[in-house]
């Protein structure tokens, strides 16, 4: 089952990368504001049913793909 995990800095945490991109876009005259930069992982998780795949993907996101101290994550099931 295809799964997408989005990992973003936690609210309130300093995001130097997002800030640097925002400043550059402003410098180039693009009407873009408060940029946040994070990571996206696409993975193929074997699991009996959607429920089980979501649980495994959640565990993977919590334990490996994100650092709960400074990041938050979101799991999206993409389909078969």
């Amino acid at each position: 089952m295809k799964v997408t995990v989005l990992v973003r800095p936690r609210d309130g945490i300093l995001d130097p990368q997002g800030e640097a991109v925002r400043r550059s876009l402003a410098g180039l005259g693009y009407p873009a504001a408060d940029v946040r930069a994070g990571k996206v992982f696409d993975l193929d998780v074997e699991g009996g049913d959607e429920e089980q795949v979501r649980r495994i993907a959640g565990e993977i996101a919590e334990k490996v793909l994100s650092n709960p101290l400074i990041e938050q994550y979101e799991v999206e099931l993409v389909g078969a």
Partner: protein
Amino acid sequence: MNAVSPEPLHRTLGLTDGELGRIQELLGRDPNDFELAVYSLLWSEHCGYKHSRLLLRRFPTSGERVLQGPGENAGVIDVGDGLAVALKVESHNHPSAVEPFQGAATGVGGILRDIFAMGARPIAILDSLRFGELDDDRQRHLFSGVVAGVGSYGNCVGVANVGGEVEFDDSYEHNTLVNAMCVGLLPAEKLTSAKATGPGNLVVLYGSKTGRDGIGGASVLASQGFDESSADKRPSVQIGDPFTGKKLIECTLDLLDRGLLASLQDLGAAGLASSLSEMAASGGVGIDVDLSAVPLREADMEPFEIMISESQERMAAVVEPGRLDDVLSVCARWDLDATVIGSVTASGLLRAFAGGVEVGSMPVDTLVDGAPRYKVAQERPARLEDRPRLFADPVDPSAALRAMLSSTDCGSRRWVTRQYDQLVGSGTVVRPGGDASVVRLTPSARAIAVSLDGNGRRTSLDPRRGGMSIVCEAARNVACTGARPAAMTNCLNFGNPETGEVGYELAESIEGMSLACEALDLPVVSGNVSLYNEHFGRAIHPTPVVGVVGVLDDASLAVRAAFREAGDVVLLAGDGEAALDGSAYQKVVLGEHGGRIPEPDLDSERRLHEFLAQAAERGLLRSAHDVASGGIALCVAEAAIAGAVGAAVEADDLFGEGDGRVVIAAAQADVAALRELAGDLPLREIGTVGGSAIRVGAAELSLAEAAALHDAGIPNAVGA
């Protein structure tokens, strides 16, 4: 005050009932919540030095080179040619155990700010790291994360990492230690102080915006209903932004070059609260601060959060009104926020305002010097043994040497140093890997040598002798390059000072360090103290970490640790007492730890350093490498591996460790001159350089095998 917490507020903030009483006495009234938060941080052990300030007075801090001793952001010494060097080491232990990468990175960021706050351009970083043994995933995760973090910040701001050390021991399993040292260069007359002066002058905050970073325990004060879910919203981890850090260095040095700042202070622990009170107290003035003027990264922060936030990459400066526009334009050029947040007053008070209303008013001297100074109870630990142990001769010396070369204790540190930019600034004449590193001070022909050392295992066997020994070793490492040791900085990593045993360890280590400093004429110019490093009541080894800077008049005469020419004579200079107690051999080969370490002979140590300096000045030394961890066997093996040339050396005590001994190599023709120079300092021919094997007494193995074992030590343990 929220009714939820059963404990009275001051105890939740870490203040004892007695300390609350003292605050009430000093203020002549009850402190409000805002003031209580400020006192709780300024009087914490980290900022207030409650259990160490009395003991720290023992350190010798004066000397003819000293331009600034302890009391400012960093110590500063004169190195000749109108140049001065700033130096300091600081700990970031707790944050690094919580989040290794960011903890280590912000540790480097913080020590850099202490250096350029003195007006010095940072030119070298050293990092001293301690972990549990690398045989479990968590310690491997901490080790890899901390090294990557140190590298990520130092490499990005473009300050060369020239050395440090790594120690693995069960004692540090639950107490990772990350001590970061920085050395900076400045014209002697450009020395900048934190002393705020001139009532009416403006207080300017510049650098990053302020967020809720590192507010920790004080978050209990938040009036927005403190509950479990909102608690974990507060990021306890501080995030470092080395890119802004680099801009902060260039912007600050630009401001100082143009003479625009009256005084300067970095923002570290306890943020604005600590730096504004330190600036005001040292200048004998007061400061009014308008918290509503502080540029914020997060909306609706409360006044106390703004006051004690530990957001990184921020500096506070005192500026004469006439110079404000220039200051703001220089900061704009470097793309940094800069805002007037207050002014200097003659009140001697730190007064904070928010939305036009006074939220706190505290006499600055009570904040900075009012913290109680506890006399530390001292009780000799029962574990201390009175006599050295007896050791059988090694059964198989060659096998012992192999085991030690490939251990994480004695193996090569290249896995760490190859992750650091060692060359930015084009000043690193001697790179890390030997004893001390040497950085030249272009355009002057001079150079400084710098070493950062600690040894928890040996100090735990005899805190006083361990303190003496670690100062001797750091100074000896510097002397091996031909430089003359000039000044010392240190970080005292110890357990809970409220126990008699740790009190004893702290007092005895400081006494030993002071005796060595006095004998070697080495003033202590700065440092840091990190206490309460314990786990379920078990304290870490007493671990003083010592940084020494030495001066070399001619960078091109720097001496290296590596053997160079086949046919050179190998000599042992000095013959200090050695023992296997607390040695790498005892740990790696015997799997034990105990006994008593020998007392260094301070007078012969001083003569050894002077001999090395004079020999180097006359170009008589091909190499010099001090005998330390692993004894003469490791010393000779390391020199051979580094020089990619074999050596054969006679020695009956292969692995004994102690002070006062250096293995040097010299051309045959120079041996007579060396003998004459040595005078009554023992100088014994023990072998020759050459061949493709390493033989030390009864231990022998091929150079190729020794190099392979040495290189593979840490990569094998950490899984590359």
